[in-house]
C-alpha cells in the first residue's frame, strides 16, 4: 500500500498537470510564481543588441510547469530581462474566461490550437510578425497551415500529443492497439477495469473513430450511433478521472485507460509499473497542439518576440522536450533529443500513425454532444 506522501507526489507529478484539473488547482497553486522572484543574473551587459529595446519583464500565462526553468534563466541572462512572471491556468476555459473578463497585462499564453480561432474572433490576440521569429523556419511543415490558423499568423506551435489507450501489459497480455479492442475488452474481460479521462472531447474520439467518422462530427445520425456505443460502455467504466488515472493504473485497479501520455514516463520509470504501454489506436485518434500566442495588448512585445524566437532555437527547444516530455514540432530540435524519447511512440507517434491523426475543433457549442455527455456521465456506474 502506497503511503500518502508517495501518493500525493504521484498525483502532483508535473506531467499530469497540463490537463489535470483538480491536481493542478489544489496541489500546485502555490507554484504560480515560478521564476518571479529571482533577479536577472546577467544584467544588461551581455544582451544581444536588437532593434526595439527589450523590456525588462515578460508575463507568461501557461499550463503548470510547462517550461524548463533552466531555459527561463538562460533567457533572462541573455536578454537582460529582469523578471519572467509565470502564471498558471489548469484548462483552456480558465484562460479564455479570464480574457473574457477583461484581464490584461499578459504577454504570451499557450492555448490548445482549437481554441485559437475563437480567441482571434474575440480580438484577444495579436498577429505575429514572423520576420521577428526567424527560428519559426524550424517548425515541421506538418504543423503549419492547419485549419486552426491557415496562414500561421496567430499561433506558433509549441508541443503536441495524442489521445490514446494506456494499458497494463501485465494484465492484458498483449498491447491493446485499437478502439474496437478497447470496446470489446471493456464489455468483456475488463469490465469495471477501464478508466476514461473526464473530458468530453477526448471521450467522443473513441466511438466516432470506431465508426469511422470524424472525431469532430456534429452530424445528428453519427452522434446518435456514438451515443449507443457510449451507453453500452457506461456501466462497465470504473471511473471518469482526469486527475488520478495514473494511480488507478499503478494499483492495477484499472487495466485500461482512455487517456493522455502525460503520466507515462513516470509509470515506466517505476519497476512495478514498467509494463505500462501506450498506443495510438489504429482507427485513428486525436492530436492536440498547444501553441504560443501573443496578446493584442501585450505590454512587452519586444521581450515576447525575443522569447518566441529564443524558445524555438533548436538546442533550447530540445531542452524543453527533455523537460516536459511532450513532442516538439521543431524538426531541428528533434535531432538533438535523446534517442530514448525519439523512439517512444507516446511522445513522437511513428510516421505510420501520423496520417490517421485528426486535430480537434471546438465543438463545445453542440447541444447534442452535451446531452449525450450528460447522459453518459449519469449512466456510469448505473
Amino acid at each position: 500500500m502506497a503511503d500518502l506522501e508517495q501518493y500525493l507526489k504521484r498525483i502532483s507529478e508535473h506531467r499530469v498537470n497540463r490537463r489535470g484539473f483538480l491536481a493542478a488547482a489544489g496541489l500546485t497553486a502555490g507554484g504560480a510564481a515560478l521564476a518571479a522572484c529571482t533577479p536577472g543574473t546577467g544584467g544588461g551587459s551581455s544582451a544581444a543588441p536588437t532593434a526595439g529595446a527589450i523590456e525588462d519583464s515578460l508575463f507568461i500565462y501557461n499550463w503548470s510547469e510547462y517550461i524548463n526553468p533552466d531555459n527561463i534563466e538562460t533567457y533572462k541572462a541573455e536578454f537582460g530581462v529582469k523578471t519572467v512572471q509565470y502564471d498558471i491556468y489548469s484548462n483552456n476555459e480558465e484562460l479564455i474566461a479570464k480574457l473574457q473578463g477583461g484581464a490584461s497585462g499578459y504577454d504570451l499564453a499557450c492555448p490548445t490550437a482549437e481554441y485559437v480561432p475563437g480567441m482571434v474572433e474575440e480580438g484577444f490576440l495579436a498577429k505575429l510578425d514572423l520576420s521577428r521569429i526567424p527560428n519559426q523556419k524550424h517548425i515541421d511543415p506538418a504543423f503549419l497551415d492547419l485549419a486552426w490558423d491557415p496562414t500561421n499568423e496567430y499561433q506558433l506551435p509549441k508541443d503536441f500529443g495524442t489521445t490514446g489507450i494506456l494499458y497494463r501489459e501485465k494484465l492484458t497480455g498483449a498491447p491493446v492497439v485499437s478502439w474496437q479492442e478497447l470496446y470489446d475488452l471493456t464489455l468483456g474481460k475488463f469490465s469495471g477495469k477501464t478508466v476514461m479521462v473526464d473530458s468530453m472531447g477526448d471521450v467522443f474520439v473513441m466511438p466516432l473513430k470506431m465508426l469511422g467518422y470524424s472525431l469532430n462530427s456534429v452530424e445528428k445520425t453519427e452522434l446518435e450511433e456514438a451515443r449507443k456505443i457510449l451507453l453500452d460502455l457506461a456501466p462497465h467504466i470504473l471511473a471518469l478521472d482526469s486527475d488520478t488515472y495514473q494511480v488507478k493504473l499503478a494499483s492495477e485497479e484499472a487495466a485500461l485507460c482512455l487517456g493522455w501520455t502525460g503520466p507515462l514516463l513516470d509509470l515506466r520509470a517505476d519497476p512495478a509499473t514498467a509494463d505500462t504501454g501506450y498506443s495510438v489506436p489504429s482507427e485513428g485518434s486525436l492530436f492536440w497542439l498547444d501553441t504560443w500566442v501573443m496578446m493584442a495588448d501585450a505590454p512587452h512585445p519586444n521581450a515576447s518576440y525575443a522569447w518566441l524566437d529564443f524558445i524555438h532555437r533548436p538546442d533550447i527547444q530540445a531542452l524543453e522536450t527533455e523537460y516536459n516530455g511532450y513532442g516538439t514540432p521543431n524538426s531541428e530540435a528533434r535531432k538533438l533529443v535523446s534517442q530514448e524519447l525519439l523512439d517512444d511512440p507516446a511522445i513522437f507517434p511513428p510516421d505510420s500513425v501520423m496520417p490517421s491523426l485528426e486535430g480537434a475543433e471546438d465543438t463545445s457549442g453542440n447541444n447534442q454532444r452535451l446531452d449525450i455527455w450528460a447522459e453518459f456521465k449519469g449512466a456510469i456506474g448505473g
Partner: protein
Amino acid sequence: MAAGAATPAADRERGGRIRSALLTFLLVLPAGAWYLVLLIAPLAIITIFSFGVRAKNGGYAPAFVLDNYAAILGDLQKAAPFTASLSMAIGGTIGSLLIGLPLAYFIATRAGRRKGLFILLLVIPFWTSFLIRTYSWLIVLGPGSLGGFIGDLVGDDNFRILGTPVAVLIGLVYGYLPLMVFPLYVTLERMDRTLVEASKDLGAGRWATFRQVTLPIALPGLITGSILVFIPMMGEYVIPQILGYGRIYLVGNALVTDFLEARNWPAGSAKAVILIFVMLITVTFYTWFVNRGRKGREVSVL
C-alpha cells in the same frame, strides 16, 4: 436663561445620537459591503446570466430567453443531478446527525476536563487542505486497505467502496461533521443538567428523557447544524469527483460541465438558480417541519 441652558444639553444629546449612528454605520459597513459585493452582486449576475444565451465562442451573450430553464424543467433526465444531489445531501445530513449528536452530547456532558482536547481534535483536520484530506480517503477506502479487507471478508473479489454512493456519503459526512458538532455542542453545553435529573425523578425512562427534554433543548443547534452541512453538500463537486470516481453525477459536477466544458454560462447559471431554489424550499420545509407545534417559541437558526 432657562431656554439658553437647555439648548446645549439638547445639542449634546443630538450630537451623541449622531455619533452613535455614525458608529453603528461604520461597524455595519464592512459586513454590508461584504454581503453586497460577495453575495448580492454575484446572485444578481447569476440571475441575469440565466436568461441569456451562449455567446458564439462560449461565455455569455445578453438576451432574454427562458430556454435555459425550460431545458432543465422540461426534461426529467436533466433533472437527475438535482435529485441525486438532494438524496446525497439528505443522506449526508442524516449521517452527520447520527454521528454528530452522540459525539456532541458526549463532549458537552461526559468529557469533563478533556472537553478542550476533544474540541481541538475536531478542529485539527481543518489545518490540512480539504483536497488532500479527501485524497487520503482514497487510500483508506481503497482496494489495498478497507475496501479489499471487506472484500476478503465477504469473499467477493469485485467488492469495492470507492466509486459507490457509500464512498461519497462517507466523504460528505467526514468533510462536514464538525459543522454539525459545534452548534450541537454549544446548545447541549448550556443545557441545565438538573432538568434531566428532574425528568428521571418524575419517572421518565432514558428514551423519554431524551425525546422530551434533551432533544427539544438541542433543537436550535440541530437545525443550525443541519442547514450548515446540508447547503454545502448540495453543491459538492470535489468529493463525488474523487471518491465517487466520477460515477456519481451531482449538480456540482453538472455545473462544472456547463461552465468549463460547454462554456455555456447561461445554462450553468440557470442550474445554479434552480439549485438555490431547491435549497431554499428544502430548508424552509425542514425548519417548518421541526418547529411545527412549537409556536411562540423562539428558535435561533443561525
